[in-house]
């Protein structure tokens, strides 16, 4: 009786979220999956006929008449993955020490700091990126200050370079890395660190064998949350990169708009999703392996 009631409660609680995800997540996903195998309509949309060349022109079995195979799409994907990986790495290097520092602050300072980290979310991403445009441009704040203090004599050429894209991506993604990392660091069992030092381990050994394994779930969590949106980001490369280096997100957007080729855009999206899923499963497996070792 009690079990049945528990099931009922659980079902009641889970129904809304299941329906929500079913309608707003699963259904669109299925539509994209379906569209990726359909014939592109001349003016956008799809024609209901099977068409495998959307994948053929990416992977190399196009006929060179209707569709042409070009390695460019996989190159664009590889470059986007590279940028996303670099963003993850830089966010991690930036956030890891800061997480330790914040976790040792007195309580009220800690709250203030966590609030500051989430502050950027209060304004639109586009507005914040245009602010970076104003900071980075040759006559912008950064160059004016650096020239003013005599650090440089010519303005730095950062805007419209890959460096500006990476800078923008790291800026956008840092809070997503920081929050899971901070929670892992905050939960660190400090007695274990003391024990490790007391038992004669060096600082490096203590870090590698005690601190790192305990914070690994936070690192992996942050890495995944930063990696996924970074792969598909197309606004940062457009605004700060001057649209000169095409990313997979730009390519997908272009297929749905200026190229009016929804099926090809869908096929590209499916491939991005497959790659992201592989990364996700890989990192979960890695976390499980590590967890197993510790246990």
């Amino acid at each position, binding site marked *: 009786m009690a079990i049945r009631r528990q099931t009922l409660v659980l079902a009641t609680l889970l129904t809304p979220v299941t329906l929500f995800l079913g309608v707003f997540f699963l259904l669109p996903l299925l539509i994209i999956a379906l569209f990726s195998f359909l014939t592109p309509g001349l003016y956008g949309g799809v024609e209901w006929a099977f068409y495998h060349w959307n994948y053929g022109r990416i992977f190399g079995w196009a006929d060179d008449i209707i569709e042409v195979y070009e390695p460019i799409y996989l190159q664009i994907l590889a470059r986007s993955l590279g940028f996303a990986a670099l963003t993850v790495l830089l966010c991690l290097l930036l956030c890891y020490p800061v997480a330790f520092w914040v976790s040792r602050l007195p309580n009220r300072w800690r709250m203030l700091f966590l609030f500051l980290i989430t502050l950027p979310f209060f304004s639109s991403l586009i507005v914040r990126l245009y602010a970076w445009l104003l900071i980075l441009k040759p006559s912008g704040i950064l160059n004016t200050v650096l020239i003013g203090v005599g650090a440089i004599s010519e303005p730095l050429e950062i805007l419209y370079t890959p460096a500006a894209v990476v800078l923008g991506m790291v800026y956008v993604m840092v809070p997503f890395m920081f929050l899971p990392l901070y929670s892992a660091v905050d939960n660190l069992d400090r007695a274990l660190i003391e024990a490790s030092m007391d038992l004669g381990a060096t600082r490096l050994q203590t870090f590698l064998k005690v601190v790192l394994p305990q914070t690994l779930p936070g690192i992996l969590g942050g890495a995944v949350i930063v990696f996924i949106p970074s792969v598909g980001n197309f606004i940062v490369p*457009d605004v700060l990169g001057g649209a*000169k280096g095409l990313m997979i997100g730009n390519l997908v957007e272009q297929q749905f708009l*200026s*190229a*009016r080729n929804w099926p090809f855009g869908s096929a590209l999206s499916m491939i991005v999703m497959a790659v992201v899923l592989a990364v996700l499963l890989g990192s979960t497996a890695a976390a499980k392996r590590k967890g197993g070792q510790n246990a």
Partner: protein
Amino acid sequence: MKALGVAVALALMAGAAQAEETLALYNWGDYINPEILTKFTAETGIKVTLDTYSSNEEMLAKIQAGATGYDIVFPSVHMNDIMLKLGLLEKTDINLSPDFKNIDPANLRSKEDPTSSYCLPYAWGTVGVFYNEKITGPLTSWADFFAVPEKTGGKITLLDDMREVLAIGLIANGKSVNSADPADIKLATDYILAHKASVSAFSYDSMAMMTSGDIAAAHFFVGGNVFFIQMPEIKYMIPSEGATMYQENICVLASAPDKENAKKFMEFYLRPEIAALNVAQQYNGTANVQARELIPAEIKNNPNITVGPETLTRLHIFEDIGAALKLYDRAWNTIRTAQ
């Protein structure tokens, strides 16, 4: 209780009456003088709402995906043709309105609707080059424009638009901007790639960067002139090799909920003083011949905004190229990924 019932009924009727008198515009961003909408509402009592889009394709995709509630859209001529082929537009017989005589026949550019029984010419303009004469000296051609970085150290930008950028390459090679010949598109791609290293960015943000002096020259729409009224050193030119022009038309959607109000708006826009009001704020061209006499002198007498017949021969307009769009898409990907 009865009084309350009557009050509610009256309120509902008032609400319903108000709901009837609306007009929903779906236009490009910053592409209509807000004063026109205020005047239209003041005169007719019809409440106007305005949503915006940033490309023809964005608008088409939204309408195709089934967006309803919009009465009027402002597609470019080639998109006007596409939407007619797709059956998305409503016949308005605007060409039978008495004031239609104000419209220059040269602006009836739709291939699918050559007599304008569906849409009304809205505005037209050129896509040329803005340059800071203090940095670049006088520029007259695309060759001059692309030489700016090497000669002066100044930066240049192109529009972040597939067909506009490839059109430069096609024009420089003496080809049609609507070519569907892969060989022509290859020539155009090679021309742009040869100059890509000189181009700082493909961007729509160039006007602010021109004002701050961070960019020396930019490929942009004639409407950009509005930013440089106080900056005489910023000039605008139509390159000698040729350039593109655009024209948008006012079209009523087949799905429009208020078709009569939409027709009223079209007729309102046929008045010379209303069309001239738009030019005064937008700095572009009008199809209304009478309105051309009413526009401010600094626009009317600027040979680059109000272009003469000899410049007109150098201007090319985009047409619907159907399946050939795929060639342009691939060329654009190549251009944007080349290092």
